[in-house]
C-alpha cells in the first residue's frame, strides 16, 4: 500500500552532545505526539525507553545528532544520525554490560552497558551502522499495524 504524503507525520529534533540538562526532551516530545494520535500505550512505553536510551548515548558520546521521527499508520520509525567518535566494534557494543563510559558518567548512574541492548530489546526492528571517527546511525522501528505481522 502506498502512503500519500498526508499520512506521514515527520518531525526532526536536534540533540547536542554533553548537554545533560536537555537530555530526555526529544523522548518526552515524541511520547506526547504518540499519545495525541492514539498509539497503543505499551508501544509508547517501549518507544519512550528506546528513544531515551538513544538520546542518552548521543549526549554521552557524540557531538550532535539529528533525530527524525516518521510515523505512518503502519510503522513508527525513529532515526538517529550522529556526528562523533562512532563505534569501533559494534558487536562488542551490543553486548550487555559492555561500556566505554568514564567513571564520572558511571557516578551519575549511566554507562551500565545496557543502552544499545535495551534499545534493541524494546524495538520491533533495530539497525545500527557506524564509521569510527565520523558517527553512528541507528534505526529504531515499531510496527503499528498489528495485523500485517
Amino acid at each position: 500500500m502506498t502512503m500519500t504524503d498526508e499520512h506521514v507525520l515527520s518531525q526532526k529534533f536536534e540533540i547536542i552532545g554533553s548537554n545533560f540538562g536537555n537530555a530526555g526532551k526529544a523522548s518526552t516530545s515524541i511520547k506526547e505526539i504518540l499519545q495525541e494520535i492514539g498509539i497503543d500505550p505499551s508501544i509508547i512505553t517501549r518507544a519512550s525507553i528506546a528513544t531515551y536510551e538513544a538520546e542518552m548515548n548521543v549526549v554521552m558520546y557524540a557531538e550532535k545528532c539529528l533525530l527524525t521521527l516518521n510515523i505512518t499508520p503502519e510503522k513508527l520509525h525513529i532515526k538517529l544520525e550522529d556526528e562523533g567518535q562512532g563505534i569501533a566494534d559494534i558487536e562488542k557494543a551490543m553486548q550487555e554490560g559492555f561500556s566505554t563510559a568514564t567513571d564520572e558518567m558511571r557516578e551519575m548512574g549511566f554507562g551500565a552497558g545496557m543502552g544499545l541492548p535495551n534499545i534493541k530489546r524494546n524495538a520491533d526492528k533495530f539497525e545500527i551502522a557506524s564509521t569510527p571517527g565520523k558517527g553512528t546511525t541507528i534505526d529504531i522501528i515499531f510496527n503499528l499495524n498489528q495485523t500485517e505481522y
Partner: protein
Amino acid sequence: MNQYYHSIRIDTDKCDGRMKCLRICPTQALRIRNGKAVLIEEKCIDCGECITVCPQNAIVPLTDPFGEHTKFRHTVAIPSPALYAQYGREILPEKILSGIKKLGFDDAFDMSATCGEVSFALQEYLRDYQGPKPLISNVCPTVVRLIQVKYPSLIDQVIPIDTPRELAAREIKKKKSKKLKLKENEIGTFYLTPCPVKMISIRQPAEKGKSSIDGSISISDTYAPLLAAMENMEKGSYRKALESICILGIGWAMGGGICRTLRLKNSLAVTGLSEIIKVFDDIERGKLRNIDFIEAHSCPQGCVGGSLTVENLYISYNKILKLIETLEFEKIKACPDIREVRKLYNQNYFFIEGKLEPRPIKPLDKDLAKAIKKRKEKEQIYESLPKIDCGVCGAPTCLTFAEDVVKKEAKLTDCIFNQSIEIPAMSKMQNDSNPLPSVRVNIHKTQKKKDKNET
C-alpha cells in the same frame, strides 16, 4: 450526562473571564468561551490550582457545607492530619478532636493512628513486591488521576493499599454500627479535608469501588468555628496529649512524612505537580528503577499546602516537623501493634477494592491515518500562530488553540492575529514586511516552503 465528577463548579455569574485559571491549569483543561471559563472534563485531574488563583472566587470547590450532616443518626468527623497543623504549636490533636465534638459531631476520630497502621502495611507490601519499580503512593487522588490520564503505563506501579481516610471510615462504620445497634448507612462519616479532590475520590473512587466516606467538609470552613469551640476549653495534661499521638501517622500530611516511616534505602518524596511530572517522565524513560517507593503530593509541601487550608503552608509543615521531633526527643512512640497489622494484612484487610484503570485523553481521531493527518494540520496551524500564548482566543497556549481548531472546537478566526484589526504593540513582533492582519496568507506560505523542502 457527565462521564466524570469533578471537585469544582464554575459560577458563571461571578466569572468574568480573567484567564488566571486558564494559565495555571497544569493539564490545559480550561478554556474561556463567550467570556466565561469552561472546564474540559476529560482533561481535569482535580488539582484545585484554579480555585486558589481565581480573583473572583468563581471556581467553587464542591465540598459539603459546614453543618450539613443532620441526616445521619450518628456522625463522626475524621480530620485530615493537616488540620492538626492549622493552629498554634501548643494546640495538640487531642484538643482539636475535643473541639470538633463541640461542633455538632457525635465523635471525632484521630486518623493518624490509621496512617500508622497503613505505614506498617506498606512496609509489608514493599518487602514482598517483585514487579517493576518504583512503586507510587496512591494517597493523593490528584496524583492517581494524573497517572490515569497522562501516565497510563505507570498504573501497575500504583500501590493497591487503601488510603487511611477510607480505611478509617470503613472501620468506624463497622464498629459504631455494632456498638450503637445502628445500620452502617445511619452512621455518617465526614472527612475534614485540606483539598477539594478528596470529595471526588469519595463520589467517584478512581478504582471504581465504593467509598465509606459520606461527605467532606473543608478545613477552611471548619477553621473559625473550631477556633471558637476551643477557646474556653480546660487545659489538660500536655504530656498526656503528646502520648496519644501516633508518631508514624502524624507526618502523613506533609511531603516526606510517609517515606520516613517506611525504613527504605531508596525512596523519594515529591511535592507540586510540575515536579511530579518531571519525576514521572523519568520513571517512564526507565530511570529511577533503583528507587523503591515514591511519595507524591500534588500540593506544595504535601497536604498542609492544600487549597482549602488556612495556615501558611511552611508554618504548618514546620509545626508537624517540630511535633515529630518532640515525640522523638521525649521517646514517645504511640504506635499501632505491628503484629496486629500483619494479621490484618494477611487477611487482605488493607487492599483496595476494584482495579485502577487508565483514563487516557481521547486521541485526535480514532483512526490512526486520520489522527496523523490531524496532527499534521495542528502543526501547520501552530506554525502560523504568533506563539505568544496571549490567551485572547480562550485557549491557554497557541499549541492548545491549534489542537482546538483541528478538533473543530475553535475557529481559526478566534485568534486575534487572524482578525483584521491593527494592534501596534503586537505588530512589532513580526517583521515589518509581513504585517500581521494577514496570518492566513502565512499559512499558505509555510505550506509552500515545506513542500519545496520535501521535494
